[in-house]
């Protein structure tokens, strides 16, 4: 086949990129080689638009064992325990085929984690759909939720937390981000770097089929009206095989047989082999006729570009083949030696001894293009919204409107479809600030949460970037965990658009600054560009997945009120910031103005002190104040428990809407026993923390003096109806 400009473009490569390929090879590539370049040089695999910015992220800390660049990040949680975790997007496939797209998203991220020697212990997800009244939303929601459940439930890893959001910005490009968290022994972490010459390269797992060919390239382009035609690029998941693969790999990892291991994710056999060779500064030779194929007459091109799931590449120590084969045979999985490491520094592809492709590894990896794309700064929006100009509403009606909205409703309909309890270490599941997972057989635990704030990021990316890291940190603090590190999934539009690139660059500035200030490094992550259809880009949606440590798990902390007649304190200062709030969005459909300001010094001080209060057993319950403001936080504390609160009128004369619905940051609500209030107040005073005594818990009723009184059961009903009525 002649490589014409059309063929080049069909591979998602630019003409100047193609000239560069010819230069690197000193010749024209054949079709197989072109396909391999296209797989390695697309945005998804090469991070060509993002790399320049990603290297500025804050990634260091004594808790970090492995930062970005491996299959997943690794952190130290004391003793000989390590936590391995990462988040990844599967947006494009999930929009085309929601069940399989979401399912294989979960499968892919699980492989990233167990590839490193960790047994996965928790799954999380962040899923974003278009407006509920968009004609595709309902079926996408159904498909994605059952896909996530279908995979996680079957493989037997609990799905413990997540977020499900709706916004018209995702009408034609939903987001499906999946995060996996695993536990490993600190001295038993496995990496992808190849070592040694003439070592056996082994293929294990499922057979290779024709599914997912060019999946990574598909994920590196915008959608248009022909997106339906891309269905064959979506992979099909088989959680059962993944379960076998996971058990077999973990069994083989018990001894010293493995030199390096890499899962076949995006761009399948191509990227896994190149990655291993590139990191090891070696060459790799593959005999493609040996690849176990699901279908007959598969070409080398198809074999190299297939994204069939549940496959791994392993480089074994000499003489370990039989031992390893026995384990994979026990689990009924394919095990084939398909090649070896070489000193050529080339990727050499042979079919029955005939060399069909030969590409320098560097050309595919380090020489892949890097773009310094143009970007523009976003000014802080000026527009102020005057409450006086808006139609008057009652506080009670506004609260009901928010609690019954798609975005603030109880997500039980979603989470009931996920097995949250399997493995029997889920101390606290979805529906709280963060989930708590016990380290099996020990008395310590980790807390995990995923968060995003697309509206804030859209309004002002730097502030939005800061805010999500803070919100995530706050969620972990609220369950008594010391936040250790994060993974981020950066979902953005087309990077060739200067505004989108600006959103990306500036969100990252906000994330970096916050991570550094809070000593909360990024250890892994994923970038997903080209989220949009026909030039309409999604709002910038970085998603943060955080992991924190609970040293000694005695009394898991949550947001549910524990008893009546205790005092509720509001920690942190309330300014009444209503722009970009749930109040304006849900009640008036206004999304305008600046996001709330983030003060990192207050964030840190408030958070550390809350953690101290929890450690000293001085609080009964803790909630962070986020979307919906103080009133929603308080209502959630009530609905979680059945107890109510009697809230005093704010002492200073102030606008009640601003006071109750404002989304000022760094705030928490805490429940304190009356006999502990003095101690708590002293600690807060000593740390110069602003706080208010805002009310007392009581039975049955959520009440604001002179304003509203609602039965908590009624609130619960209001908060639980949206999904059932949808």
């Amino acid at each position, binding site marked *: 086949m002649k490589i014409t400009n059309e063929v080049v473009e069909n591979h998602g490569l630019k003409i100047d990129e193609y000239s560069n390929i010819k230069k690197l090879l000193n010749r024209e590539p054949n079709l197989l080689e072109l396909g391999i370049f296209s797989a390695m040089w697309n945005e998804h695999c090469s991070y060509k638009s993002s790399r320049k910015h990603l290297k500025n992220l804050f990634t260091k800390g004594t808790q970090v064992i492995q930062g970005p660049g491996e299959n997943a990040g690794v952190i130290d949680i004391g003793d000989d325990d390590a936590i391995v975790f990462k988040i990844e997007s599967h947006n494009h496939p999930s929009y085309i085929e929601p069940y399989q797209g979401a399912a294989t998203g979960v499968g892919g991220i699980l492989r990233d984690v167990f590839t490193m020697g960790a047994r996965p212990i928790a799954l999380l997800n962040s899923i974003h759909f278009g407006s509920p009244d968009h004609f595709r939303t309902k079926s996408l929601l159904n498909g994605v939720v059952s896909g996530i459940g279908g995979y996680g439930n*079957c493989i*037997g890893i609990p799905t413990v937390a997540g977020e499900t959001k709706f916004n018209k910005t995702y009408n034609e490009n939903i987001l499906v981000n999946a995060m996996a968290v695993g536990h490993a022994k600190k001295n038993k972490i496995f990496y992808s770097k190849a070592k040694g010459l003439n070592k056996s390269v082994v293929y294990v797992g499922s057979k290779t089929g024709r599914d997912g060919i060019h999946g990574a390239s598909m994920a590196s382009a915008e959608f248009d009206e022909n997106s339906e035609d891309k269905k064959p690029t979506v992979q099909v998941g088989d959680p*059962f095989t993944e379960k*076998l693969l996971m058990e077999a790999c973990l069994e083989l990892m018990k001894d010293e047989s493995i030199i390096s291991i890499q899962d076949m994710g995006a761009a399948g056999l191509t990227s896994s082999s190149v990655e291993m060779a590139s990191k090891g500064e070696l060459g790799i030779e593959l005999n493609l006729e040996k690849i176990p194929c699901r279908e007959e007459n598969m070409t080398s091109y198809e074999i190299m570009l297939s994204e069939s799931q549940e496959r791994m590449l392993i480089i074994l120590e000499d003489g370990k083949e039989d031992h390893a084969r026995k384990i994979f045979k026990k689990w009924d999985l394919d095990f084939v030696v398909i090649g070896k490491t070489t000193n050529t520094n080339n990727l050499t592809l042979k079919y029955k001894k005939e060399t069909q492709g030969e590409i320098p590894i560097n050309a595919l990896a380090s020489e892949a293009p890097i773009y310094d794309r143009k970007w523009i700064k976003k000014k802080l929006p000026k527009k102020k919204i005057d409450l006086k100009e808006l139609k008057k509403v009652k506080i009670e009606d506004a609260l009901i409107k928010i609690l019954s909205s798609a975005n603030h409703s109880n997500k039980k309909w979603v989470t009931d*479809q*996920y097995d949250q309890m399997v493995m029997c270490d889920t101390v606290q599941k979805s529906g709280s600030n963060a989930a708590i997972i016990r380290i099996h057989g020990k008395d310590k635990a980790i807390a995990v949460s995923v968060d995003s704030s697309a509206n804030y990021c859209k309004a002002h990316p730097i502030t939005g970037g800061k805010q999500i890291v803070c919100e995530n940190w706050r969620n972990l603090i609220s369950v008594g965990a010391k936040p250790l590190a994060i993974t981020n999934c950066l979902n953005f539009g087309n990077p060739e658009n200067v505004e989108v690139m600006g959103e990306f660059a500036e969100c990252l500035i906000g994330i970096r600054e916050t991570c550094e200030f809070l000593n909360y490094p990024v250890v892994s992550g994923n970038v997903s560009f080209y989220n949009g259809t026909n030039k309409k880009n999604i709002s910038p949606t970085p998603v943060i997945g955080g992991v924190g440590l609970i040293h000694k798990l005695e009394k898991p902390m949550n947001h549910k009120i524990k008893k009546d007649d205790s005092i509720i304190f509001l920690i942190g200062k309330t300014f009444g910031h209503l722009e970009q709030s749930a109040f304006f969005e849900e009640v008036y459909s206004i999304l305008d103005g600046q996001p709330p300001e983030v003060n990192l010094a207050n964030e840190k001080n408030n958070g550390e002190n809350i953690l101290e209060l929890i450690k000293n057993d001085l609080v009964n319950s803790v909630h962070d104040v986020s979307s919906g403001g103080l009133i929603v936080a308080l209502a959630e504390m009530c609905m979680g428990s059945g107890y109510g609160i009697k809230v005093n009128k704010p002492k200073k004369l102030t606008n009640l809407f601003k006071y109750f619905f404002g989304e000022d940051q760094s705030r928490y609500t805490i429940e304190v026993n009356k006999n502990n209030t003095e101690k708590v107040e002293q600690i807060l005073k000593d740390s110069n923390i602003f706080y208010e005594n805002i009310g007392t818990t009581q039975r049955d009723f959520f009440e604001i003096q002179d304003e509203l009184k609602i039965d908590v059961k009624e609130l619960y009903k209001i908060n639980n109806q949206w999904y059932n009525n949808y």
Partner: protein
Amino acid sequence: MNSSVVVFPGSNCDRDVAVALKKMQFKNTMVWHKETKLPKSDLIVIPGGFSYGDYLRSGAIAGKSLIIEEVIKAANDGCLVLGICNGFQILTETGLLKGVLLRNKNLKFINRNVNVKVINNETKFTNKYKKNQILNINIAHNEGNYFTNTAHLKELNNENLIAFKYCDQDGNIKESFNPNGSLENIAGIFNMKKNILGMMPHPERMVDSLISNGDGVSLFSSLLK
């Protein structure tokens, strides 16, 4: 007391059951599905999960596996057999328990705590519970909708072979508190000799006070008696 947990490819509650059994002082052995001999056991547990990926029909392939022959033999000799969730499905596939487990009425996977009522507490499995005791216990399944023919249903009732039924928090057995569409709200049944119990709820998830209530404890302690 010696117990064996049978592990199929795709079982995923095997470790959970083993942990619970150990906590309850059982001497437990894990038995891989390709084995052809069971260790001497007083209790065999078929755990939850997705044996063989639930291909064909949940429990169908496991019901024809090598080790299952041994389980059937042992059961016929009077050994106690407990099938939980996928284990219950497998037991119906072997014929050790009659009836079938259909897809949940709402066609969705359901994981949540539900109330179940102890219907028969005069068995090896349930003697530590009170009659009509209400348990709050976790379910997690796609196919828990128990169905059987009229003759067998009659037999279940006449011979007191129903172990648990889904109910509300006061013990009322109502259709609105039937999570999966199960016939007569059935959550678990015995065979005629009452040495085999199949149940959809997961007692092994309810033995650790840090993660749940202790409503599963009595099931295991009943067996120790």
